[in-house]
């Protein structure tokens, strides 16, 4: 009698567990197929030498894919472009974002309007608006383009920013990237600044503290967690740059000399030179390793400088 009662309860709990997992099932299936399995598989691919995607066969196992990628001049070019992009855009966009957020926080009139306007790039299609930037910066035999007209007004020589010298192309890419990423930074920093306890400022005012000192001793420490969050996500985002470059220079980025690491991965996978998932995997893992290293360095540095409450 007692035994059967116990069995009944456990059957009940079993049903409960099963229905619980039923709720979870769709998420588990999709994550398993499109996240966890690929995560393992990408490492497998990267070590399979001479993989043939048509026959799905390979010759051997080793690190040849990595050494091939690291010696490929297109990869070196992509790596160089990406690093320049990161080194320029992360500090500039964070600094500019902070400056604009400080300005926004110090005004009352028109503040909502400015905030709305500044956020617009976030909701635009990177590819579509990139086309507008291309037209603004491009110089053709028929037209000088907007930006070159401005340069002409100040007495400079016109440059083709889209098909011209390397520095000019890099400038447009950095400019467009900053234009795209700034809304997010302004938004986060404005709300971080607004959430600093006003009492600190009032106390400083009573003491007659100077503005520069208030900024360095109160504002900066108080928003430092958010600032570091933005620097870390900024590094990660900039290392994964791709769409901005395509928007400006077209899909054949190797020919334009403006490819990025992510672009290299996709070109290896599919496109004019595509069909090499092994090389693509090796390049993707190299990228991941670089990003992971930089993020760890960031975290170690942040421990020293960031004030968590």
């Amino acid at each position, binding site marked *: 009698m007692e035994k059967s009662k116990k069995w009944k309860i456990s059957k009940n709990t079993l049903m409960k567990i099963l229905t*619980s997992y039923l709720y979870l099932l769709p*998420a588990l299936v999709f994550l398993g197929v499109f996240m966890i399995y690929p995560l393992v598989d990408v490492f497998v691919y990267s070590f399979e030498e001479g993989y043939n995607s048509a026959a799905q066969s390979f010759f051997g196992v080793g690190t040849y894919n990595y050494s091939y990628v690291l010696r490929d001049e297109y990869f070196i070019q992509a790596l160089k472009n990406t690093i320049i992009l990161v080194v320029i855009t992360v500090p500039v966009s964070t600094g500019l974002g902070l400056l604009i957020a400080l300005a926004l926080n110090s005004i009352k009139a028109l503040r909502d309007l400015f905030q709305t306007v500044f956020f617009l790039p976030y909701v635009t299609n990177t590819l*579509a*608006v990139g086309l507008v930037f291309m037209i603004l910066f491009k110089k053709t035999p028929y037209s000088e383009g907007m930006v070159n007209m401005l340069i002409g007004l100040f007495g400079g020589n016109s440059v083709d920013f889209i098909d011209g010298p390397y520095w000019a192309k890099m400038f447009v890419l950095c400019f467009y990237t900053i234009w795209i990423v700034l809304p997010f930074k302004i938004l986060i920093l404005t709300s971080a600044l607004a959430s600093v306890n006003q009492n600190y400022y009032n106390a400083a005012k009573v003491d007659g503290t100077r503005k520069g000192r208030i900024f360095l001793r109160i504002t900066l420490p108080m928003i430092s967690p958010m600032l570091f969050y933005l620097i870390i996500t900024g590094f990660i985002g900039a290392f994964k740059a791709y769409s901005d470059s395509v928007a400006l220079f077209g899909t054949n980025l190797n020919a334009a000399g403006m490819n990025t690491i992510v672009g290299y991965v996709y070109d290896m996978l599919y496109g004019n030179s595509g069909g090499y998932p092994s090389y693509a995997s090796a390049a993707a893992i190299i990228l991941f390793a670089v990003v992971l290293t930089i993020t760890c360095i960031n975290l170690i540095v942040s421990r020293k400088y960031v004030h968590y409450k």
Partner: protein
Amino acid sequence: MENYSKIKTKANFRHNLGKTLTYMLLGIWGIIVLFPFYWMILSSLKSYAAYNGEYVPKFYTLSPTLRNYIDAFTTVNLAKYLLNTVIFTVATTALMVLVITLAAFAFARLEFPGRDLIFTLFLALMMIPTELVVITNFVTITNLDLRNTFLGLILPSVTSVFYIYLLKENFAQIPNELYLAAKVDGTKDIKYLFKVMIPICRPTMVTVIILKVIECWNLFVWPRLITDDPAYFLVSNGIQEIRENGFGRENIPAMMAAVVVISLPLIILFLCFRKKVMEGVSRGGTKG
């Protein structure tokens, strides 16, 4: 007394100078942000001949024309790209909301062995960049013969660990008493989820939906890998196709008309739900 007024004028001057500089900075960045939008609308209203006749571009047009918009819909398949993107966005968002709601409910409300372990694993997955998994997903979809199908486009983006996390946190805030009361009344779990939890957490659901719609509308990389048949292009790929093969190379006004048509829906969405979008992005947005 004289000294006081001198100091006061000086302080006022400084204050005003600071204000002026602040507004100048904001104004300049405002112009830099708005100018591309102005330029695309302006160019899209210029006629082909007028645009190409200007060696030095003009900042205004005296004879605006809608001809380019007609071209954008007749010469290239812009309507098809828009329709594809709408189908893709609606289907992906709807499926994702269903999948993440069920999962978040299980994590927040139900008790079963392995729950915390699985949730921790889910959180760990948030660190995985899409670039790492896209390679195998491309091979998987190709092997399943799902290239150039909506299914192939949609399937990989119907789950998001981050949104599960966001929703679970919100679900967990609903007091236990409500659930127990519902249980006493004999309410089934699924009914409780749809009749109580989802209505209470509507603000978060709306945030998630808006963020997902923005993401879907602007998606570029995955559709580029998975579709090479223009019949399945989304707007991002469509505009790239238009740039490289549509209209003939130099018809920039028509291209700009297409850009305006593509950009408009999200800008309207943003202006209608300004507060929601900005709040949502500061809670869970990335991009940059």
